[in-house]
């Protein structure tokens, strides 16, 4: 049943370009797809380990810059007279490097999360993203600062027997993003249903108990942070090669908030949650644009986030799942959230 829905969803998304010809809507779908990949990676941390990272856009932006710089090349002077000269490499190498570098940054932030938890972790992650933004803004020699990196090449993939294919059109990019999104979904799904996923959830629900049964906190949380950051870096790379211009504004806090809203609305700790929330909030601006000023849209965003947290604190997908499941399997449906301490208190 569940896999049938998943396959139908993928088929439906794959068929979109067959009937949708409007380039503006296609563009909105592609950027939404990229943000959904980012939201899925955020959900891995927020929904399955309970760590609220509000600097998630840093990994996305680092991925975008690494990928762009790898494929554009750079020539940077360092202190003590050293210089780094880099000749352009194919964008696909940039894509891989984006994942690796973002993952490394995720490792550093993950290490930090043992020293500081809760509100402090949130503030550290925000600070991390802001420091990265200021570096991108001020290290003009490397990043061009506010002038932005332009003319970023499109991704080229070598197909066996067909030669190289450069993904320039919206149609090609749409399928590329869809493919990466599906891979990400499957990866996260396999991960949370593995031994490692159960360890993460155990830590989120009761850390003391989880540690007492032999779960390694350090290993589990850093691994989750590394994977999450790596996926966000991949999304950033896709973004850079699709939009083909990036500036430090990519690190804006509002982009993290967009991902958080997607996850919370769809349902944190639910695999399909970020996809549902992402489709709503990715496409909402498209429909609101003719009737509302951009500022009013943002007011609505803030308002919707508040209303969702008050009315549907679990998010859309878990609430729907609860409604449509037979009572006997309720516990299973709710597994990601039902046994958290807060719910235990509610049920008590």
């Amino acid at each position, binding site marked *: 049943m569940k896999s049938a829905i998943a396959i139908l969803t993928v088929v439906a998304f794959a068929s979109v370009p067959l009937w949708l010809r409007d380039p503006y809507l296609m563009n909105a779908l592609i950027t939404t797809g990229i943000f959904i990949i980012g939201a899925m990676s955020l959900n891995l941390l927020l929904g399955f380990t309970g760590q609220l990272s509000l600097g998630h856009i840093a990994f996305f932006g680092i991925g975008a810059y690494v990928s762009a710089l790898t494929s554009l090349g750079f020539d940077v002077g360092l202190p003590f007279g050293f210089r780094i000269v880099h000749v352009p490499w194919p964008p696909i190498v940039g894509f891989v490097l984006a994942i690796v570098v973002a993952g490394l940054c995720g490792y550093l932030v993950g290490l930090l999360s043992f020293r500081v938890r809760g*509100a402090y972790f949130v503030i550290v992650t925000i600070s991390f993203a802001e*420091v990265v933004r200021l570096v991108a803004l*001020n290290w003009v020699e490397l990043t061009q600062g506010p002038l932005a990196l332009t003319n970023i090449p499109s991704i080229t993939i070598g197909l066996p027997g067909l030669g190289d294919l450069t993904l320039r059109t919206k149609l090609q990019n749409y399928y590329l993003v869809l493919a990466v999104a599906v891979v990400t979904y499957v990866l996260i799904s396999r991960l949370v249903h593995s031994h490692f996923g159960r360890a993460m959830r155990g830590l989120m629900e009761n850390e003391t108990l989880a540690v007492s049964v032999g779960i390694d906190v350090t290993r589990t949380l850093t691994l989750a942070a590394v994977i999450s950051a790596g996926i966000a870096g991949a999304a950033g790379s896709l973004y850079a090669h699709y939009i083909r211009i990036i500036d430090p504004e990519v690190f804006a806090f509002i982009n993290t908030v967009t991902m958080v809203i997607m996850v919370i609305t769809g349902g944190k700790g639910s695999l399909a949650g970020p996809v549902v929330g992402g489709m709503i909030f990715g496409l909402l601006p498209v429909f609101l644009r003719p009737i509302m000023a951009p500022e009013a849209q*943002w007011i609505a965003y803030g*308002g919707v986030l508040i209303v969702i947290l*008050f009315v549907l604190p679990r998010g859309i997908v878990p609430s729907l799942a609860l409604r449509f499941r037979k009572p006997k399997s309720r516990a299973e449906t709710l597994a990601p959230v039902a046994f958290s301490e807060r719910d235990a208190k509610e049920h008590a």
Partner: protein
Amino acid sequence: MSEFLQHLINMLVLGGTYALLGIGLTLIFGIMNVVNFTHGVLYTFGAYIMFIVVHQLGVNFFLALPLAVVAGWLLGAVIELTLLRPLRGSDIDTTMLVMIGAWIAMQSGALWIWGGVAKSVTTPFPEAPLVLGPVSVSWLRLFVLAAAAMLIVVTYLLINRTKLGCAMRATFQDQDTASLMGVNVDLIYTSTFAIGSSLAAAAGALLGPVYVIFPQMGDLAAVKAFAIVILGGLGNITGAVIGGFVLALAEELGAGYVSSGYRDAMGFLIIIAVLIFKPTGLFARSERVG
């Protein structure tokens, strides 16, 4: 040397308002355990009240400051009553996300109402700065320092010498016991949030005329306030005052001797460094307010 003295003078002026921001946030964080993301918006709000009162209502500059404080107090009370009171007892992440929602909505509201063009407030102070040997400081900045110092002292007396302050300190130590002793905890929460908000608005009203006023001005202010609170230790007012001056000094020296582009990075670097090496803050004496 004279350059260094000038940095010190600038540090004093900045530090005073930073301390106001920090005290407001540390009270809210310490007593209510709420990560107040609307703190920056209240700062912006105070600055805009200053602009409206001086330029649109034509009221005296010195009267505008108390009005901004009162307006901040009212807005803070409204936020607490409508958003935080219903969420009492829910986990800190939920409250945090609700406050982020409120922040986005209010900041976009400011952008909608007042537009993105930066505004400046004309002040009654002479243009020519006061020159003291090698350093110079404008009269406006001196007034800002004096007003901030006065507000800090008033807040200190409020917390340490009044019945309300006593109840706030009791709530910080142990909410349940305070409640048993007859403290109306709901009222304390609303008062705390309102007082913290009015201090943020005061900081905005003071620094707004020094710089320019625009809807996003509060974002950096909020982060600086977080840096100050983390530096000074949770709920520690003296720590927040010292933290405010330390941050101002770090910014002045960073801008003067490293690069002005990284001025605003100082707050973030302080946050990260303090949390890595001394997560309880530099001045953590004991777990209490005051």
